[in-house]
C-alpha cells in the first residue's frame, strides 16, 4: 500500500489536532490540549480507486514557546496549512510556515484551511482577503473540526494532488 505523509502546519491553538482527530477518529472535543513535538496518526483512504495509507503528522504549533522543526517535514507528500478564522495573525503564521517549508524542502501540494468555521460570526477575515488567497495549487477551505466541514475534502485534495504529482 502506498504511504503518504501529510503534515499539518500552523500557529498554536488553531485546531490542527482537532482536525486530525475529526479526520482519523471522527470525534471532536472542545478541550484544548497543546501538542508537544509531533503526534502521528494513520488513516487509510481511497483516492481515485487506489488505497492509500495517510500518515498524518500533527506538528506542534509555532509560537513564542516552540519553533517548527523543519526536519519533521522531510519525506512529506503534502501539507495542510491551518489558520484560526477568529485570529487573523494565525493566517500570517500559516503563510509564513508554508513559505519556510517551501524554502527548505521545495514545493508540495498543500491546502489552506481557515478553521473554526462554526464560529464564523467571530471571524476576522474579509472575503476579499480570502479570495486573494485562493489558487489552483493551494485551495482555501473553510473548515470546522467541530462540524467536520471540509475536513475530508482537505485531506483528500492534498492526497490526490500528491498522488498525481508522483505519477
Amino acid at each position, binding site marked *: 500500500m502506498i*504511504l503518504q505523509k501529510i503534515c499539518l502546519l500552523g500557529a498554536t491553538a488553531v485546531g490542527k489536532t482537532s482536525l486530525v482527530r475529526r479526520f482519523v477518529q471522527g470525534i471532536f472535543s472542545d478541550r484544548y490540549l497543546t501538542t*508537544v513535538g509531533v*503526534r*502521528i496518526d494513520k488513516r487509510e483512504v481511497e483516492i481515485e480507486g487506489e488505497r492509500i495509507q495517510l500518515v498524518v503528522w500533527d506538528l506542534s504549533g509555532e509560537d*513564542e*514557546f516552540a519553533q517548527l*522543526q523543519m526536519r519533521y517535514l522531510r519525506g512529506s507528500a503534502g501539507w495542510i496549512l491551518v489558520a484560526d478564522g477568529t485570529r487573523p495573525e494565525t493566517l500570517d503564521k500559516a503563510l509564513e510556515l508554508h513559505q519556510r517549508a517551501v524554502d527548505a524542502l521545495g514545493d508540495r501540494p498543500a491546502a489552506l484551511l481557515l478553521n473554526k468555521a462554526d464560529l464564523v460570526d467571530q471571524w476576522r477575515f474579509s472575503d476579499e482577503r480570502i479570495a486573494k488567497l485562493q489558487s489552483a495549487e493551494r485551495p482555501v477551505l473553510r473548515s470546522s473540526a467541530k462540524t467536520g466541514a471540509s475536513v475530508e475534502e482537505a485531506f483528500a485534495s492534498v492526497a490526490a494532488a500528491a498522488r498525481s504529482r508522483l505519477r
Partner: protein
Amino acid sequence: MNGPLSAALPAALDLAVFVERDDAGFDALEPLPAWAGAALPLERPLRLGACFLFLDTFLLDAADFWAERRPGVLRSGPWTEAGRDGVEQTFEALALFHADRRVLILERLGEEFQQLQQSLQTAREAALHAQRIGLLAVALGARGVNARPLGTVAETVLLLEPGGDYRELVEPRPPEGPYRLADWLPAAAVSALRERIGTCVRQRRSQQVSYTLETPEGPRAFEARLLPFNDDQALAVLRDVTQRVEAEQELERRAQRLRRLEDDLALLLDELDVGAIVLDEEGRCAFASQAAGRILAAPIEALRARPWPEIFAESPVERRELLAWAKRPAAQRGRSPLLSPAGLHLELDLREDPRNPARGLLFLYDVTEVQALRRRLDETARFGEIVGASPVMGDVYRLIEDFAPMPTTVLIEGETGVGKELAARALHQRSPRHAGPFVAVNCAGLPESLAAGQLFGHKRGAFTGAIQDQRGLFEAANGGTLFLDEIGDLPPAVQTTLLRVIQEREILRLGETTPRKIDVRLLTATHRNLETEVREGRFRSDLLYRIRVARIRVPPLRERVGDIPLLAAKFLQEFRGLTGKPLRGFSNEVLRLFAAHSWPGNVRELRSVVEYGAIRARTAEVGLADLPPEMHAEAAAPAPDPSRVQAAPDLPLAAAGGDGDESERYRGAIERAGGNRTKAARLLGISRATFYRRLAQLGIEPQQD
C-alpha cells in the same frame, strides 16, 4: 541479574537500545523494557522505521548524523504514536555513534514530559488569553521594548531565572531580556518570587505570589503565578487583579455588613422575645434562633430538621389543626395561640419566605406578659363574677360599690338570666359582712305552706312532720346576707311576716313565742314589675317600700351587646376545661350572629349556646355549624329588626327550646348508638365524661352498655 551489567543497565533505566545493522535493520539490546517488547514487532532484525512511522523520518536525520560521525547525541524531540500493541505513547529517540556502531535509543517519556506539557499548555493559554484581550500587544507596543514597569500591563508572561532576572515573552517576537525584577518590583515581592522560583522548579509545583505596585493612578494589586518550565526556570503569569481584589474586598465588606445585620436582627429578635424559625421546602426546621430555643425551652439543635407541627403540638389532633391553620390564606390566617410546655402563652405567626415561597418563616411571640396584662384588663371588665365592660354595666358596678358598705336593703331588678344573683353576691362580697354567710333563696320555688317555715324556722311539733327544731334561712344567714330572689313570687302571708322581720330585726320560729334577734342584711331581686304587682294587689306596698330602699337594675344582654364577646370568651374558657378540647375562639360569623341575636334568655342563654357550640366544635374555633339549630335559622334569616329585638318577650331559656333541642340530640345519639354510651358520646363528638355530665344535667337516663 543474569546478563552482563552493560546489557541489563538500559532496561533498568527503562530505555530500549538498538544497534543499526548494515542492512538497515536493527538489533535490539536484550532485554528490552516491557513497553518496548509490547510496542515492537517480534521479527528480527527490527525495521524500526516501519514500526514507528516517526522514526522513518528521524532515521533520515540519524543517517546523516551517523555518516558524519558527529560527537554527541541527536535528539528527535518528543513524538506521540501508537505501536504494535495499539497503545499510544510518547517517546523520544536519541541517535549516537558509539564504539563504531550506530546506536539508537528509545526513551518512553513519562511524568516529566506531562509536566512540561502542562507548563507549556498553561503558558500558551495565558498567551492566548492575553492575545484575546489585546492588552499585551497594546501595552508592550505603547511602552516600547524596555519601558518599565511591567506592572501597568494587565497580563504578562515572563520566563524567570532563579536569580530574579527574567525575559519577556513578547508575541510575536522571541523572548526579550534579560531584565531585572528588582528594577520595578518592590523588594519584598522580588524576594518572595526568588524564593518561590526555587520551590516551583524543585518541586515541579505551581506557586503564587501577590504584590502591590504604586502607579500614578494609585496602588494596584497583582498576582504572579509561577509554573515550572525546566530545571531552573519558571514561567510567571502576572495578572493585574486589582478589580478582582476590590470586588473581593467589597464582597467582604458587604458580608460583614450582612453579618452585622444578622447579628443585630438576632439580637433584636432575642430582645423582643421573638423566636424565628426558618422552614425548608419540606416544612422542617432549617434554622432556629436563640430566642426560639429559649421560648420553647429546647436546645436549638433538637429543633433542627423536625417537622414544624411536631415542634409545637404533641397530639395528632393539635398538629392537624396547626396544619389546617397554616393552609389558610395568609390574610385570613392570623396568629395561632399556643401554650408552651413551660406554661408560656405563645402566638405563632407564619409567613412565606419572600425569597422562596416554598419555604416558610415562623415567628414565635411570647405573649405571657401580654396575657397577664390582658387578664388584668379582663379583671377590670369584671366585677366579682359579673363580666361586662359596657357603660351600662359600669353604672351597675358603681351602684354596687355605693350600696355594698351600707346595711341597706337592696332590690335588684332585671330580666331572667341577666345575673341578678351575681350582683347580689358582689354586694355581699364588698360589704363588711363578706366574711359571713351568703344565703340565696328563690322565692318562686317555695311552696306557700312551707315558705314561712323555710325562712323563719320552726319548733318541733309546730306542724305535722316537724319532728325536730329547725332554724330557718334567716338564722342561717345570721351575720351575713340573705338574698331573696324572685321576691315578687313570695306568698302574701309570708310577705307580711317578712315585713315585720325587716322592721323588727327579729324572727319568730313557727311554734315558738319568743322572737330571736337576727343580724342579716336582706337583698332581694325580681324580674317582675313590683309596682304593677302592688297595683294588682299581689304584692304589699309597704313591703315594696321597705325592700326598695336602694335599687339596682341589671340591664338585659341586648342592651350591652359589647359585652357579648367577653362573656362568650369566659364561657368558652370554662367549657374548654370541661370538654378537654383546645378551643381557642369563635369564627367571625358566630360573633356577628351573637351581636345580632336578641338574647331573650340573656346571659344564661348565651352560656347555654356557647356550651352547645363547645361540645359540637370539631376544630379549635367554634363555627356557625356548631351552634344550636335555632341559631342556624336566625343566621339564615334576614337581619333582625332592632325594634322587634327590644320588644322580645322575656322567655326563659327552656321555653326558647335550648335544652329541649339538646335533649333530643342526646336521645337521638343514644338511639343511633344502640344504647352504647361510649359510641353515643363519639357520635356527638364529645368525651364520655362530658356526655355523662350533660346527661345528668338534662335529666336523661341512659341505657346500660
